[in-house]
């Protein structure tokens, strides 16, 4: 009974034990980094000789960290906004349109997710150097929107496929204009997809390292570029403090997502 949870006997114990080990492996670096950020050893000795908040003080004393975080937040917010709007329009056409080559266009729009980022990074870097967009906020937003678009299209198109179009048609038959029906009936129904699209495209930009390394200028650095630079210089515990704050942000995002999902579903 290999797929019957209650009748697997010793095999279940072994597999559950293994699953717990893998979960611990996945959790280990995240917990470790948070503990490390409170440890007093500059050389990252663990377990630390004592506990301290000085790495957080150092982090906040250096304005370049906050500046990088704000730059990242600005670029990621704009990216999420653009990717959701463009992705929403594209998803309607991809799910509902009936034209030749639909599958090919779908594949094309999702290619940025598959192509190794380093290839896109040097391509767009060269292109923007010529256009004079290298190291600009606009350049960052455009490049990140290209990368985020598949992450916006996938959840929205999935939600749209699960939505019964006859409800929208019913609204039109009852006198709503097609646009009105879409705005007041369809969009609220697929809000889980739109919401997931916003989160995923935000994260796609917020976490993006490779394009950012090429595009960054001394005056425009995103948070990953700042961390990358510090990592290459040394393994200072200040990075652990910054990382812990990012873990906190991830947890907050997960909780908000879970709460919203629960509310949407009831």
């Amino acid at each position, binding site marked *: *009974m*290999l*797929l*019957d*949870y209650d009748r697997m006997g010793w095999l279940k114990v072994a597999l559950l034990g*293994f*699953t717990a080990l*893998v*979960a611990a492996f*996945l*959790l280990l*670096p*995240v917990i470790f*980094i948070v503990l*490390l950020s409170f440890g007093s050893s500059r050389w*990252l000795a*663990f377990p630390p000789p004592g506990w301290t908040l000085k790495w957080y003080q150092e982090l906040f004393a250096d304005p370049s960290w906050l500046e990088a975080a704000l730059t990242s937040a600005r670029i990621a917010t704009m990216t999420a906004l653009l990717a959701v709007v*463009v992705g929403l*329009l*594209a998803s309607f056409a*991809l799910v509902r*349109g009936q*034209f030749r080559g639909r*599958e090919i266009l779908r594949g*094309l*729009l999702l290619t940025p*997710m598959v*192509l*190794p*980022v*380093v*290839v*896109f990074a*040097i391509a*767009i*870097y*060269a*292109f923007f150097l010529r256009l004079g967009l290298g190291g600009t906020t606009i350049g960052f937003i*455009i490049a990140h929107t*290209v990368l985020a*678009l598949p992450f916006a*299209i*996938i959840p929205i198109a999935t939600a749209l496929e699960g939505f019964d179009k006859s409800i929208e*048609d019913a609204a*039109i*038959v009852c006198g709503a204009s*097609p646009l009105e029906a879409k705005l007041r009936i369809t969009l609220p129904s697929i809000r889980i997809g739109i919401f997931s699209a916003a989160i995923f495209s935000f994260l796609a930009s917020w*976490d993006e*390292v490779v394009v950012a*390394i*090429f595009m960054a200028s001394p005056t425009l650095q995103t948070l*990953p570029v700042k961390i*990358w630079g510090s*990592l290459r210089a040394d393994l200072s515990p200040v990075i652990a403090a910054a*990382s812990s704050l*990012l*873990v906190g942000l*991830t*947890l907050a*995002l997960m909780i908000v997502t879970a709460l919203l999902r629960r509310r949407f579903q009831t």
Partner: protein
Amino acid sequence: MSVETQQSVATLRMPGGLGGLLPALILIGLFFVVPVLALLLRSVTDPAPGFQNYAALLGDGTYARVFFNTFLVAAVVTSVTVLVAFPVAWMLAIMPPALASIVFGVIVLSMWTNLLTRTYAWMVLLQRTGVINRALMATGLIDQPLPLINNLTGVTIGMVYIMLPFMILPLVGTLRAIDPMTLRAAALCGASPFQAFRRILLPLSLPGVAAGGLMVFVMSLGYFVTPALLGGTSNMMLAEMIAQMIQSLLNWGLGSAAAFILLVVTMALYALQLRLVGVRRATGGV
């Protein structure tokens, strides 16, 4: 619905078909297709027209080592990831929902945590004086610190860590879709658990394993961040070499050619995956 209203609804359906694709196509066309094609052009024109960049890349032992190393790492990472992910996905597919949601929570937390944060944690954990080496030495298993970082071991650990969620999550879907009755039937017919696993569960989950494994392999081939931070200089991977050619050596011709080779290999494997599972499954169900 009467025929008449059906017709009027049908006419209403027409507008907004292709027009909605326009912004996305402009964005992808102008800022993805054009730059990538321009890069390809550069690989055969910089510094002079011809294929000398490709000849240099394919004829030199140093570059051959990088190509070999890239494939080796991707193959090792994929194998380990599949082996570790399968039992976990199996349990997740049949666990009580409350327990499963805890494990899913851990997976999502690890997946959503900043990539550099996770890599930084492994850099500290794996270093010579890191926790793992000290713990192993304290238990008396080793008396010299193991070289766990700046080599293949470090890259493999770090990459498997990052790839696990991408393998586990789709595999849970595949395993959930298998009808438990098939295994009950096998047991009734006298199959031992091992036989049932080898002849029923494994073959039925193979499409999911192949699709996930191929995805992990493709992602590993072009991965930049983790190999660059956890790997050593003597076993560089392709993505890092490309970045270095452009950023440090400013050799655009050679860098573009290497990038194009990576692109062709990736796209060929992606096409194989599409044939294996179809566009929808390959891209997560769109």
